[in-house]
C-alpha cells in the first residue's frame, strides 16, 4: 500500500481507484489484522473471544468518539483518562456510601440515579475544560492537562488511594443492578456493546446530519471564518468537551461495574489510546477533518491488535513497539491520501477549463 502511494501516477491507471483504497485503508488494515490473527492465534475467532475483545475495544472506542469531536473542532482533551478514574470513584462512593448529609443520615441512590450523577460529573469536568479554553483563553492542551492532574488527584483523595471494593449495591436502595452495566447482556451482546452502538450512532448522526456537527467541522477548519459566518464558536466548544466528558463518564461506570470495584488509578493513559484510535481512523490533528466511523474502525484495529498479540504470547514490550509503528504508518498513509485527493480535485477543476 505504501509502495503504491509513493508512485501513484505511474502505476495506478485511475487515481480514483487508488483513492478509494487509501480511503478504506483503516478498514483494510482491520481485515488484514483479523485474518492474520485468526490464522496465527488459536481460538481467536471463537465467539467467547469476540465478546471479550469487543468489551475491551468498547472502552477505548467510547473515549475515542468523544476525542474525535474534540480533535475535529481543533482541540485536544487530555483529561479523559482521569475523568474515567474520577467517575469510577464517584460511582463507587455512591454505591457504597450514598451522600452523607452530616445529620446522621445519608441519601442512597438507585442505579439509574447513580448513572445520571456520574454522567453529570463527567460533563461538568468537560464544561470546566471548555470554559477554561473559551473564556480564559487557555490552550486546550494546557487546560486539559491541568484537569487531568486535578481529576486524578481528586480520585486519589476520595479514597486515600485505596480501592472501593464489592460494589454489589443493595437491593433495598435499588442499586443492586449496578453490576449489570458491566456484566449484563441483552440478545447475546453485553450491555456495554449496546451502549457503544447507541453512542456511535448518535455521534455519527450528529456529525453528518445536524448543523451542530457541521459547525464542529467548520470551527476546526477555520475558527475565524466560522465565527464570521454566525457560528457560535464557544457553544460548539462547550458541547464537544462536555460530550467527551460524558463518554469518559460512561467508561468510568462500565469499568467499575465490570470489576465490581473502583480504583483511583483506573484510566491512566487511556487518553493516549483514544487519540491513537482517532488518528488511525483518519482524524486530522489540525482539526476540521475526521469521521466517527473511521474512529470506531481505528479503535478496533488497536484493540484487536493488542488482544491478538497477547493471545500469540508476544511480549508486552513488543506490543507497545508495534502499536507505535502502526500509528505512525497510519499517519504517513493519511498524508499520501490527502495529497492524492487534493490532486484529483484540482484535476477535475482544471478539466473545466477554468
Amino acid at each position, binding site marked *: 500500500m505504501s509502495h503504491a502511494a509513493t508512485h501513484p501516477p505511474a502505476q495506478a491507471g485511475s487515481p480514483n481507484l487508488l483513492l478509494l483504497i487509501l480511503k478504506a485503508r483503516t478498514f483494510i488494515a482491520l481485515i488484514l489484522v483479523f485474518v492474520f490473527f485468526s490464522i496465527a492465534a488459536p481460538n481467536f475467532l471463537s465467539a467467547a473471544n469476540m465478546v471479550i475483545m469487543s468489551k475491551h475495544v468498547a472502552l477505548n472506542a467510547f473515549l475515542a468518539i468523544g476525542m474525535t469531536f474534540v480533535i475535529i473542532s481543533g482541540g485536544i482533551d487530555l483529561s479523559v483518562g482521569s475523568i474515567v478514574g474520577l467517575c469510577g470513584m464517584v460511582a463507587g462512593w455512591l454505591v457504597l456510601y450514598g451522600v452523607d448529609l452530616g445529620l446522621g443520615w445519608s441519601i442512597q441512590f438507585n442505579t439509574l440515579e447513580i448513572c445520571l450523577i456520574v454522567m453529570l460529573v463527567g460533563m461538568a469536568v468537560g464544561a470546566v475544560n471548555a470554559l477554561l479554553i473559551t473564556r480564559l483563553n487557555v490552550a486546550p492542551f494546557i487546560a486539559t492537562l491541568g484537569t487531568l492532574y486535578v481529576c486524578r488527584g481528586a480520585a486519589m483523595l476520595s479514597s486515600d488511594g485505596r480501592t472501593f471494593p464489592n460494589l454489589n449495591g443493595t437491593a433495598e436502595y435499588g442499586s443492586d443492578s449496578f453490576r449489570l452495566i458491566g456484566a449484563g447482556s441483552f440478545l447475546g451482546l453485553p450491555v456495554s456493546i449496546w451502549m457503544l452502538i447507541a453512542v456511535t450512532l448518535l455521534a455519527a448522526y450528529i456529525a453528518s446530519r445536524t448543523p451542530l456537527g457541521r459547525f464542529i467541522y467548520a470551527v476546526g477548519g*477555520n475558527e475565524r471564518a466560522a465565527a464570521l*459566518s454566525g457560528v457560535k464558536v464557544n457553544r460548539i466548544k462547550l458541547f464537544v468537551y462536555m460530550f467527551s466528558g460524558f463518554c469518559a463518564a460512561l467508561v468510568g461506570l462500565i469499568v467499575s461495574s465490570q470489576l465490581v470495584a473502583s480504583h483511583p488509578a483506573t484510566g491512566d493513559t487511556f487518553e493516549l489510546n483514544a487519540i491513537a484510535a482517532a488518528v488511525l481512523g483518519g482524524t486530522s490533528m489540525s482539526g476540521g477533518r475526521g469521521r466517527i466511523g473511521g474512529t470506531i474502525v481505528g479503535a478496533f484495529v488497536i484493540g484487536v491488535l493488542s488482544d491478538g498479540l497477547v493471545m500469540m504470547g508476544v511480549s508486552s514490550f513488543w506490543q507497545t513497539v508495534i502499536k507505535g509503528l502502526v500509528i505512525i504508518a497510519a499517519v504517513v498513509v493519511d498524508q499520501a491520501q490527502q495529497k492524492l485527493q487534493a490532486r484529483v480535485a484540482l484535476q477535475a477543476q482544471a478539466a473545466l477549463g477554468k
Partner: protein
Amino acid sequence: MDHPIGLQIRGGTKVYPGTRALKSVDFDLRMGAVNVLVGENGAGKSTMMKVIAGVERLTEGTVLMDGHEVQFNSTDDAARHGIGIVFQELNLFPNMTVAENIFITREKTRFGVDIDRSAQRAATRALMQRLEHDIDPDTPVGTLRVGQQQIVEIAKSLSQNARILILDEPTSALSAAEVEILFRVIADLKRDGVGIVYISHRLEELIRIGDYITVLRDGAITGARSMEGVDVPWIVRNMIGEASKDFAKTEHHPYGPEIFRAEDICLPRIGGGLAVDHVSLSLRAGEILGVYGLMGAGRTEFLECVMGRHDHARGQFFVEGTPLREKDVAGRIARGIALIPEDRKNDGLVQMLAIRENMTLSSLGDFTRIFHMDLAAERSRVADFVKRLTVKIASMENPVSSLSGGNQQKVVIGKALMTKPKILLMDEPSRGIDIGAKAEVFRTMRQLAAEGLGIIFVTSDLEEVMSLSDRIIVMSDGRITGEFDRGTATETAVIAASAVGHAPAEILEPLA
C-alpha cells in the same frame, strides 16, 4: 532609451499533472524598465514568475541570463543571481517583528552568531523611510494590516539589493496614496538599472507604470510589445479574446426607504485613539454605497462593528428603523446583515470543507427541522446558487481550496446571499480576482441592488468606487471626510477627501 535584456525564457513549458500551465513561452525581461505581465487568473503569470524565482523548474525550455543558460534549483539559487520576488500570498512570520522578518535567513550578526538587533532596526528604519511608511521595526508583523504587510514584503526584497525584482500584485491591498509611493520607489529602482516584473489586475495602473507589456492567456503569450500606444481595450482583447465588459451602471431603479442607519459608531484602537471615529451613515434599499479610503482609514473596522465583531464598539445601528440589539454575529445575520470579508482565505472560507458545506454554513437553519438536516434540500439549494452566480465547479463536494480566487469569492457571496440579507456589506469584493470574474461580481451587485438590497462596499480602487456606487462616502483616519452623490463626485475630490489628516500634500496630485 535602450533597455538591455537581462533574462530570457526560451520555449518554456511547464506541465503540472493534468494541466499545461505554460505552453512554449518566449519571454524577455528588460533591465532598467518595468516589464508588465497581465492575464486572467490561471493564465500562467504566477507560474512563469515562479520559474524565474526558482520555486518551480521548467519541464521543457531554458532560462538564459546574459546569454548563458542558468538553472535555478531553489529560491536561494535565484537570489544569488540577484532575483527577488514579492509573492501575492504574503510569506511573513506573524509573531516576529518587522525587522526580524526583513532580515530572515540573512540576519545581521556579530561574529556570525549574535544577532545585531540595533543594526537591523536601523536598516529597517531606512527602508521604511525610503518606502515613506511609518512602521516601527519592532512591531510584530501579525498586528499590521494586510497593506502594511505588503510594504514589509517589498522592503524585504529591497533589502536584498535585487537586480531583478518581481512584484506579484503588489498594489492589491494598497490605497491610492500608497500606490503613488510604490510607483516612486519603482521609478528609483528603474534608474538604478533594476529590471522589474510587475503583475497586476489593475489595467490603468499597468499602462501608467509599464515600459513593456506581456499578455498571457491559457499559458501562451498572446501579446508582447513596448507599452507605447497600448490601451485598455488592447490589453483586454489579448487577455480574454473579446471586447471589454463594461461594469458601469446600466439600469436605473428607484431607491426604497431607509433600510440601515449607523449612529455615532466609535471603536477604540489598540494603543489609543479611535479606529472608527463617530461614524454615522444611512443606506436606502436598492442603493449601492461605496466607501473609499486609504488603508487603515477604519473602513474594515466599521464593517466589523456592524457585523458584531467588536463588542467594545459604541454607537447604535438601526435596521429598517428598529434598533439592532443583537450582540453576536448570528443575531445580526438573522436581522438581515451579511458580510463578505476582505480576507477570503482567513475570514471567508473554511478551506478544507466542501464547496457545499461552505456555502450553507450561515444558513443551515433553512434546511433543518428541529435538529435534522435535509441534505437533499441543501444540495439543490447550492446547485441553484452555483448556477445563479455562475460558479465554475467540477463538483460541489470538492474542497473549496481547489477553486480559483474568483470562484472562491463567488462561493463567499453565495454564502452571504443564502442568509437572505437586506443589507450586504462587501469588503474589497474584487480583490485578487481576474477581470472576467470581477465583471460578474459587479453585475451581481447591480442586480442585487435592483432587487432591493442595500449594499455597502469598501474599496481602495478609485475607478471601481466611481463607476459602481450610487453614493460615495470617503473615510480617513476613522472619520467620514467626504460624501458625494453619483453626479457630483470627481476623482480629485474623492482623493483629496481620503487624505484629510494624512500624508504630505504632494501625494494628493490627481492620478494621471
